[in-house]
């Protein structure tokens, strides 16, 4: 039996960095588990005779206080409370909660108010996708440590990305009142409809953004993508009239086609021993994929002609089962979101009323939207006064987690010949393919490969 060998861990490197830093600022800096990051990832792999015995991807997620926080609160508090779950995709949480409440209370939002919802969601897609693709994911393909290196090597890419991201922010500010934890959305519509002038001012920047996203897609298409394909079971929203972003039915590549409210009958989540995060799966125990590639694979036909052409030029077919190329899919979706935002901005007229009337009462409702990382499901039960009796929120990252484990197992299996550092890099890259809401965790990734 050979002696167990542990890879030089990220932690060891960090300790060295911390020691160096400590010298400079004259204090010890410890970088163990940090509590307020949205998660910390650790990957454990056991290999015996060049065969994998065990792969465990662990996420420490803060306990789910939010569902408990919501109990007893009035229905209208839910959007602003759930917006706090994530600083990167507050709109996803707000809108899921809003739609669930509207279903529970029998409210439908249409016309310009519905357009504004799609517009603000486009803003969130733009800023989240660009941040991930350009600042967090692209450096992986260039062999660069981080976006700072990228800024030195190719400042134009970074400047373009920052400008695009800023426009996403601006959309959130105009429609949502502010970019950080927007405050303007409510059950029934908006507190205040944005001024026509402010929305129209988005038009020119959006025209620039369409070109800019095509340019970035071209740059990223030149990357060297690891060959890796998997037959994913994709799950996404689908809408009859548009590439689904903020509403639709839930469909899968296995032919599932259900109303959002039926989600709990078909999908579950499970506590697994090695992770605090809940792992999502279908009722039959099948593992599935949500997010950009799932949407693209299921709803390609509904993309705009320009988005399809850009995808084609980037080497993507109508189906993309190599998640390393998710960076391209994110950029195609960014482009589409810019086109959609432009279309809405060009035709925007201030509505007479900024919201429809909501009468509190008892009910049960579900809502689901396509967060940048994939479907985000909400369900609430309300009492006679409209207070929350139960809340259930299923975030995309927990749904993807079992699929991430499967991808990691395959990647490790196919790359065991790589030196430890290269293998670790490839694993981190695999996790970043998902833009997990633990993207903060990916640099804390503590990879242990035990060879027995």
């Amino acid at each position: 039996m050979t002696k167990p060998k542990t890879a030089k861990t990220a932690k060891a490197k960090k300790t060295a960095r911390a020691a160096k830093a400590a010298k400079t600022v004259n204090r010890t800096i410890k970088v163990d588990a940090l509590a307020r990051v949205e998660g910390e990832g650790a990957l454990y792999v056991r290999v015996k005779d060049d065969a994998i015995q065990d792969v465990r991807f662990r996420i420490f997620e803060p306990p789910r206080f939010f569902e408990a926080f919501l109990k007893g609160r009035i229905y209208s508090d839910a959007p602003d409370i759930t917006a706090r779950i994530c600083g990167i995709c507050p709109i996803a949480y707000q809108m899921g909660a809003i739609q669930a409440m509207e279903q529970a209370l029998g409210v439908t939002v249409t016309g310009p108010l519905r357009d504004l919802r799609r517009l603000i969601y486009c803003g969130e897609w733009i800023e989240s996708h660009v941040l991930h693709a350009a600042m967090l994911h692209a450096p992986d393909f260039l062999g660069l440590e981080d976006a700072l290196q990228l800024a030195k090597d190719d400042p134009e890419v970074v400047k373009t990305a920052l400008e695009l991201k800023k426009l996403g922010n601006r959309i959130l500010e105009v429609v949502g009142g502010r970019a950080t934890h927007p405050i303007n959305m409510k059950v029934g519509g908006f507190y205040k409809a944005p001024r026509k002038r402010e929305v129209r001012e988005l038009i020119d920047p959006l025209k620039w953004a369409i070109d800019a996203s095509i340019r970035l897609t071209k740059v990223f298409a030149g990357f060297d993508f690891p060959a890796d394909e998997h037959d994913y079971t994709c799950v996404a929203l689908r809408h009859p009239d548009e590439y689904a972003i903020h509403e639709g039915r839930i469909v899968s590549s296995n032919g599932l086609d259900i109303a959002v409210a039926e989600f709990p009958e078909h999908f579950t989540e499970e506590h697994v021993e090695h992770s605090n995060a809940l792992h999502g799966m279908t009722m039959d125990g099948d593992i599935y994929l949500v997010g950009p590639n799932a949407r693209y694979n299921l709803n390609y036909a509904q993309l705009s002609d320009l988005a399809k052409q850009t995808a084609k030029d980037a080497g993507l077919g109508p189906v993309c089962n190599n998640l390393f190329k998710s960076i391209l899919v994110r950029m195609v979706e960014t482009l589409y979101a810019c086109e959609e935002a432009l279309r809405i901005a060009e035709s925007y007229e201030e509505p007479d009323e900024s919201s429809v009337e909501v009468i509190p009462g008892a009910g049960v409702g579900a809502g689901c939207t396509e967060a940048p990382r994939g479907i985000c499901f909400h369900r609430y039960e309300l009492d006679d006064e409209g207070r929350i009796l139960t809340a259930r929120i299923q975030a995309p990252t927990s749904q993807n987690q079992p699929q991430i484990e499967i991808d990691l197992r395959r990647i490790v299996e196919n790359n065991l010949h790589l030196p430890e550092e290269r293998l670790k890099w490839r694993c981190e890259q695999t996790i970043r393919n998902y833009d997990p809401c633990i993207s903060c965790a990916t640099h804390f990734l503590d990879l242990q490969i035990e060879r027995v």
Partner: protein
Amino acid sequence: MADELEARGVRTLELDGEGTRLMNAWQGEDRVVLVDAVRSDGRPGTIHRLDAIKGRVRKNWLRCSSHEFAVAEAVEMARILERLPQSLVIFGIEGKSYGYGEKLTPNVKQAVPEVARRILLELGSPPQN
């Protein structure tokens, strides 16, 4: 703290610490002071001061954020792209607990008016007693 500074004529912004928003917020400004929580195993309530124009910001120093691209990355990125304000001073307050929904611990709470006082001094507007 923000309210107190506003009352003294300092323009303040509360941000969630996402790096690109920080860069947008300070770009083109003359004098910027940034306040954040620090976690370096020091005594809770300890006040740190760093001149970000003069010195690099270590990645792990301000790691109380849930963002991968956060304060340190934003400062260094802005340095590379020449988008730093003319003056950028960072005040960090050593925290004690970082859980959800918890209030400031007494040591940290005590540090807040002191940091506000030092910010006003920094900006050449001595606090009134």
